[in-house]
């Protein structure tokens, strides 16, 4: 019964989405020129009243849609929790002996469940807009909710017609097939939902852009309504990428933190677009500039999250993320992608000429800096997109090839360094116009710090390589430049979003220092050792003490014991394992990692040979933890900005309304 109830809730949610779209479209059509907020009208007649009634229905319907979708998702979790093996999805992806947290996480650790999560978050976001957004022009808000419903409808259709998560199995399976052991990790419980919140947040930004295009109401009010959603999406994407990177680092046992895997790129591309959007929306909200560009970026950002979903979910790529191998599903998502992106671009082409020109600015100004930021981000985005799609295109033309780290590192790293240098200067430039010489004066200290740091690295580690030396040096300069906006300011009167910006930029510097240090100073040893043998890696000596068996809830393992000492310090014990999972039958390596203040020692146990030797792979990665610590700072900065912006908006309703009256 639970599964049927879930399916019914899903159908009802889809019906609500359809109703939301129809109400919004009809209301806007009938109310054209008569809605109180619509530009240039004060007519009030019968048509206006009907339109107002239709439009009044949009908000409640959006809320009900959100509740129904959430109910459906909760019921799916329920059938996973009780291990109802008569549901096909549970039988294929779960196992009654699995720990509870993985039963729950298993609900979205598969294609159907993850798509249901996607649409649930989408519907909840629509409901949240309906409840929370009170300041935006009503016509724009209704158009936004209509666009949101149109997106949701596509995904409901996808779920109901080609990926029903509630399909019954007759007769029921005796036992489930289990969840891929690589996915049986606490990271899994949070990683996909986090990324989905990000993707869906961008869909909200997209809906706002479509709504604004429909009503031609592109201005600071629209930008302020959209900004919290962009910020929230960006924070979630940042957390998702950072967590995904750390997951790949410790779970795969390859010692790398970013592989330029297409699936990683699928999450990076929306992040790059969202980062650009985040900065251009600020120009639109503060200075009423970059109108068309901001709308375009919102379309691009959502397109990237759709492309990401398509790449990951269509089965066109193979990795732990690609659950679906059914080609009809890929075609379905591709059709949705073309429909939405094509539709949005068409609307953009038809309407953008009608949107009034925003304010202008000088080349050397905060706006100019943000344009530079946007251009460089777009270039990186373009390169990553081409590199990710090229193998797929080549395969369609009959050539099999792959594009990996050599390509991406060579092309994106120099541009990223330029971007980070521009980022250091950006916050120190004044809005509208500034003096280049005065700017250079403000940058003296950061430039000096960067130059000194580069020189120091070059003296102490001349073999580090050009990019790591530049990267390490720049990261010190950026760290100084990013806190410079707080210099000589009364910190108690500094707005929270300024702290947010400072924190996020500082996070970039910290993360970059970690990346540069990891790529320049990592020491790697690959050895075959007998018990008692000692291996030196970096400043550590690692003694292989021997092996013993170990067991967990649904696995057994061989576990090595390594005693690690550094100089005269107290010894540490590390226990890397080779795990055997019974359901499904799989072997995985569990790396053992010692986290120290200045880096991590990473150990992996390999196979044994006939002579009783065991393979060990050891890495000493100085300051590698800064990569994820920086990622955390970036996300924290975004969250601070979000809170700061929302608080300021709440505190200044009068100013806002005054602005709206003036604009009308």
């Amino acid at each position, binding site marked *: 019964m639970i599964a049927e109830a879930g399916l019914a809730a899903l159908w009802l949610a889809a019906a609500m989405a359809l109703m939301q779209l129809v109400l919004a479209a009809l209301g806007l059509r009938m109310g054209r020129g008569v809605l109180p907020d619509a530009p240039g009208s004060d007519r009030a007649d019968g048509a206006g009243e009907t339109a107002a009634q239709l439009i009044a229905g949009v908000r409640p319907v959006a809320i009900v849609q959100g509740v129904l979708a959430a109910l459906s998702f909760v019921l799916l979790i329920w059938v996973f929790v009780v291990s109802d093996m008569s549901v096909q999805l549970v039988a294929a992806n779960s196992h009654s002996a699995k720990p509870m947290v993985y039963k729950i996480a298993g609900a979205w650790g598969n294609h159907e469940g993850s798509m249901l999560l996607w649409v649930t978050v989408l519907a909840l976001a629509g409901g949240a807009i309906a409840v929370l957004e009170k300041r935006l022009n009503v016509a724009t808000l209704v158009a936004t909710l209509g666009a949101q419903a149109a997106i949701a409808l596509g995904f409901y259709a996808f779920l109901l017609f080609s990926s029903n998560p509630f399909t019954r199995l007759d007769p029921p399976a005796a036992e489930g097939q289990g969840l*891929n*052991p*690589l996915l049986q990790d606490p990271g899994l419980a949070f990683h996909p939902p986090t990324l989905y919140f990000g993707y869906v947040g961008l869909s909200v930004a997209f809906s706002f852009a479509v709504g604004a295009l429909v009503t031609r109401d592109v201005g600071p009010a629209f930008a302020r309504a959209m900004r919290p959603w962009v910020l929230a999406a960006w924070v979630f994407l940042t957390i998702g990428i950072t967590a995904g990177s750390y997951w790949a680092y410790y779970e795969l*046992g390859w010692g790398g933190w970013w592989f330029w895997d297409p699936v990683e790129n699928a999450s990076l591309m929306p992040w790059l677009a969202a980062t650009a959007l985040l900065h251009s929306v600020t120009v639109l909200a503060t200075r009423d500039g*970059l109108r*068309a*560009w901001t709308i375009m970026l919102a379309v691009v950002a959502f397109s990237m999250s759709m492309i990401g979903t398509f790449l990951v979910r269509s089965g066109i*790529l*193979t*990795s*732990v993320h690609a659950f679906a*191998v059914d080609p009809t599903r890929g075609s379905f998502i591709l059709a949705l992608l073309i429909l939405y992106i094509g539709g949005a671009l068409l609307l953009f082409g038809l309407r953008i000429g009608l949107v009034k*020109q*925003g*304010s*202008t*600015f000088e080349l050397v100004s905060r706006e100019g800096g943000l*344009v530079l930021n946007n*251009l*460089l981000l*777009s*270039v*990186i*985005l*373009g*390169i990553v997109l*081409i*590199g990710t799609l*090229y*193998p797929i295109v*080549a*395969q369609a033309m009959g*050539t*099999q*090839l*792959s*594009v*990996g780290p*050599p*390509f991406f590192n*060579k*092309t994106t790293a120099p541009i990223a360094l330029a971007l980070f240098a521009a980022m250091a200067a950006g916050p120190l430039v004044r809005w509208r116009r500034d003096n280049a010489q005065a700017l250079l004066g403000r940058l003296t200290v950061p430039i000096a710090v960067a130059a000194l740091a580069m020189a120091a690295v070059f003296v102490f580690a001349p073999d580090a390589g050009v990019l790591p030396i530049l990267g390490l040096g720049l990261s010190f300069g950026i760290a100084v430049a990013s806190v410079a906006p707080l210099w000589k300011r009364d910190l108690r009167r500094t707005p929270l979003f300024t702290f947010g910006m400072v924190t996020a930029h500082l996070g970039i510097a910290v993360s970059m220092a970690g990346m540069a240090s990891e790529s320049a100073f990592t020491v790697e040893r*690959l*050895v*075959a050792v007998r018990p008692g043998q000692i291996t030196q890696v970096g400043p550590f000596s690692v003694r292989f003490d021997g092996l013993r068996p170990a067991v967990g809830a649904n696995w057994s393992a061989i576990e090595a014991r390594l005693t690690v000492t550094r100089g005269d310090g107290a010894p540490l014990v590390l226990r890397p394992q*080779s795990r055997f999972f019974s359901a*499904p039958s*799989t*072997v*995985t*390596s569990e790396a053992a990692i010692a986290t120290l203040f200045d880096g991590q020692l990473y150990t*992996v146990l*390999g*196979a044994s*040979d*006939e*002579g009783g*030797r065991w*393979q060990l*792979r050891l890495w000493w990665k100085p300051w590698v933890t800064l990569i994820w610590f920086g990622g955390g700072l970036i996300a924290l900065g975004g969250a601070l900005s979000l809170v700061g912006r929302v608080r300021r908006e709440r505190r200044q309703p009068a100013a806002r309304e005054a602005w709206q009256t003036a604009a009308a």
Partner: protein
Amino acid sequence: MKAKHQRLMLAGLGLVAVLGASGLALSALQDEAAFFYAPADVAAKAPPTDRAVRLGGMVEAGSIRPQPDGVSIAFVVGDGKARVPVTFSGIAPDLFKEGSGVVAEGRFRADGSFAADNLLAKHDERYMPPELAGKMAAAETLEQ
């Protein structure tokens, strides 16, 4: 500067950025894309030795030989038509075994053997590199 000019200039800059990115990406792809080879391709035409490529096929039964250093192995990748000797130093993936599929990343040597710096094997029964899925199906047909 007039508003219209500014909009045109920004659009122009955007276009330059996109074209620049495409140009840079496509030129770098010429050098850095790793082409995929099956043993039969290698037999038909000598592969390049100056760039990173991928070699995919089946690990031949009985071909895995551990080397004296304890951390290297030598094995043979075949596809029913041709065979390529491969050497690899490192910890082989958990599902790397004889009679199963593998994709090796690395370079060909002048003598036609392959020096792998990374091995990709099946993650689990549901995962298989797409290049391999086709070859495996072909190999199974051959065996019957």
